[in-house]
């Protein structure tokens, strides 16, 4: 049976959708954590920050778990090469995400200052580290990595920390900071909201600058990514990203919190879509040596992809429906009560 190109493209798209879902949703969780020590200053403000994501962060993280599972299922060789190749970096991400999860649950269980400050720091580190390292991983995927004859990573750990990859790491951190601040505009009031507004504007400037830098730099570091942009429709994604990024500060200044959050989310989705367009049909380009891991080369069998597509098409509409419903239940600024963190 000939491999079905449509199915494989559908899974490339779906893995992308899951990553976009993660970046938009857990992106604001990570962004909230990144400004936990600065935007929030008092114990009560820090509790407000944690409770702003309290009911939803866990569900948001599932987008990452599901994206990991989908990558494993649809493109097993890519899952295997990326995770074994980026071994130490990934272990750091996992350790950081563990810290983040437990700091949310544990922080308010004790009243002591030392206890709470410790978990505040854990929450901060557990948010910053993944935000940067996800970008570093993306930067390496953009540049490509050396691959051996069996398609496994042939470089070193230090080799993952090129200046370009680190710049992408900063970009992802800036992007999540903006997203987290946009979320806080919706969930806070008064002085706390005013500080979140300043953070949002800083995040926007940093995102825009770093994105222009990374994009320009990628002509030298990852020229193959530009091949797809010979076609005019491909430019739709970066154009949307720029428009959303430019609209964001205007909306923030006018106090249009919901629209600002939508603009920030759209910018993130469009930036990831831009990358996806540039990458296709590669999932992990080879650099210096080896053959790139492409969609047709690494895709699972048509039967496996079909079975999963059915599961995804049956399941995801429900996920989206009840996720939307839960966000509606918890809309509006945070009010602390005895059930809060």
């Amino acid at each position, binding site marked *: 049976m000939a491999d079905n190109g449509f199915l494989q493209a559908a899974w490339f798209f779906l893995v992308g959708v899951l990553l976009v879902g993660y970046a938009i949703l857990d992106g604001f969780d990570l962004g909230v954590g990144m400004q936990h020590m600065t935007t929030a200053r008092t114990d009560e403000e820090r509790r407000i920050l944690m409770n702003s994501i309290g009911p939803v962060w*866990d569900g948001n993280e599932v987008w990452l778990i599901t994206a990991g599972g989908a990558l494993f299922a649809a493109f*097993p060789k890519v899952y295997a090469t990326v995770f074994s*190749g980026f071994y130490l970096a990934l272990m750091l991400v996992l350790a950081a995400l563990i810290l983040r999860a*437990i700091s949310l649950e544990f922080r308010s269980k004790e009243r002591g200052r030392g206890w709470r400050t410790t978990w505040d720091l854990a929450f901060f580190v557990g948010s910053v580290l993944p935000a940067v390292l996800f970008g570093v991983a993306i930067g390496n995927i953009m540049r490509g990595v050396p691959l051996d004859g*069996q398609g496994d990573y042939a470089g070193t750990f230090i080799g993952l920390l090129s200046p370009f990859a680190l710049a992408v790491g900063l970009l992802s951190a800036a992007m999540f900071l903006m997203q987290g601040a946009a979320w806080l505009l919706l969930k806070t009031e008064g002085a706390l909201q005013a500080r979140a507004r300043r953070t949002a504007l800083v995040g926007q400037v940093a995102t825009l600058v770093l994105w222009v830098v990374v994009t320009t730099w990628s002509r030298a570091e990852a020229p193959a990514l530009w091949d797809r942009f010979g076609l005019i429709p491909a430019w739709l994604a970066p154009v949307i990203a720029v428009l959303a990024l430019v609209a964001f500060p205007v909306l923030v200044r006018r106090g249009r919190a919901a629209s600002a959050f939508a603009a920030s989310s759209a910018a993130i989705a469009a930036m990831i879509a831009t990358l996806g367009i540039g990458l296709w049909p590669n999932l992990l380009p080879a650099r210096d040596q080896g053959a790139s891991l492409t969609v047709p080369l690494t895709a699972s069998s048509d039967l*496996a992809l079909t079975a999963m597509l059915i599961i995804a098409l049956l399941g995801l509409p429900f996920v989206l429906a*009840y996720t939307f419903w*839960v966000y509606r*239940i918890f809309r509006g600024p945070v009010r602390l009560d005895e059930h809060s963190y």
Partner: protein
Amino acid sequence: MNAEELARIQFAITIGFHFFFPSISIGIGAIVLALETFRLRNLHGKAETYDRAAAFWTRFFALTFVVGVASGLVMEFQFGTNWAQFSTFVGDIFGAPLAAEGILAFFLESTFLGVLLFGRGRISSRVRWFAALMVCVGTLLSAVWILIANSWMQTPAGYEIIDGRARLTDFFAAAFNASFVPRYLHTVAAALTAGAFVALGASAWYVLKRKHLSVARAVLPVALITAFVGSAGMFATGDMSSKQVAATQPAKFAGIMAIYSTASGVPMTIWSLPPTQDSSNLPQGPELQVARLLSFMTFGDWNAPIQGLDAFPTQDWPPITMSFLAYHNMVLLGTLMLLVMAFGAYYLWQRSVFRRPFWLRAAVLATPLPIIAIQLGWATAEIGRQPWIVYGVMRTSTGISRIVPPEQIAISLVLLVGLYVLLGGLWIYLARKELGHGPAPAPDGVDDAALDELPRPEPALRPGTTAA
């Protein structure tokens, strides 16, 4: 140590540590659902008590669940990090249940747990019950998918090997492979039991200490019935499971039971000194065996022959000492659990359970038994599967990541063990604190009323029954 040994240690520690938490939360989730149902129905006019009980055990659920989520993240990614060749080989089949687990189970349980925990005052009473139902369904569904994946490694089906990769040929054959149904039922029974023992132990302790009596008296019967049914269910499903292993994984069965040579009418060993890998220097000592029972239990015939390890090449033998010890200690613990719960169920039926301090103390002490038994059960299943990572198809040694140097695995192992010690320690500390603090106090001194009822001796309806 080489990379394979380090990777195996890391996997064993990660799964062992992780599974501690979901197994408790599956059981507690079911108990929360029962309490929410009674609250909604206003059972015995005690909606308020069930409300406090449900809120209390939901908080405990959340504490346990979050540690399960945190440690489960490592599980999702360590197939790729440490077992890259395995991942490449089985991705076509093994990846799908992991993705499905995310889409169909993890979203459900984590999203609705948020509603259950933070929704008070924002959602109606019925919606809260519905959220509890979805959390419970989510935990049971996640067990479906992960056990499909894990059971496929025990009894692979519905695939063919093309170019060194397993390719799916029949989705339903792969999903409903030979070991999935018995292993799912056995695992769920065990998890329900584990959670129920925790709720039961805490409630029994409150009764003994005369604290939080209204809630303790509301929770104890629910937990006790769940624990009794679960403990009994473990024997029924364990029987299914061992028959399946004997039929489809005979070398694993021979290893677990330490049967060295093929014979008919094989006795069942209840207790013996630990057997060795090499049958020529077996330790000599006392042992307790029931003649021909293993043949009967496995094949329904007292004289049925059972294949011994001599029927298989030595390189296909599992580690006999460890799988034997894990299995037999699990069964001993299971027997003890069922015994305690049988007494409890009898006392409950007699309506004397709250006046049995000796039994209540036993229930408190029995709290961790299912959790230990579960660890032993997983060890039996996974050590017994060795030397295969996919039974009979791929050896564990060929499944590792070829390019990850042992130093990196060692670094991550130290990092993870450090985190697990921290997590485990904090969980124990906070769980004890939470259980010690107990549920919210009853309004209007309802707890005192409950205390009044408690020590009153039962009218002598049953001759020979005395209050303890």
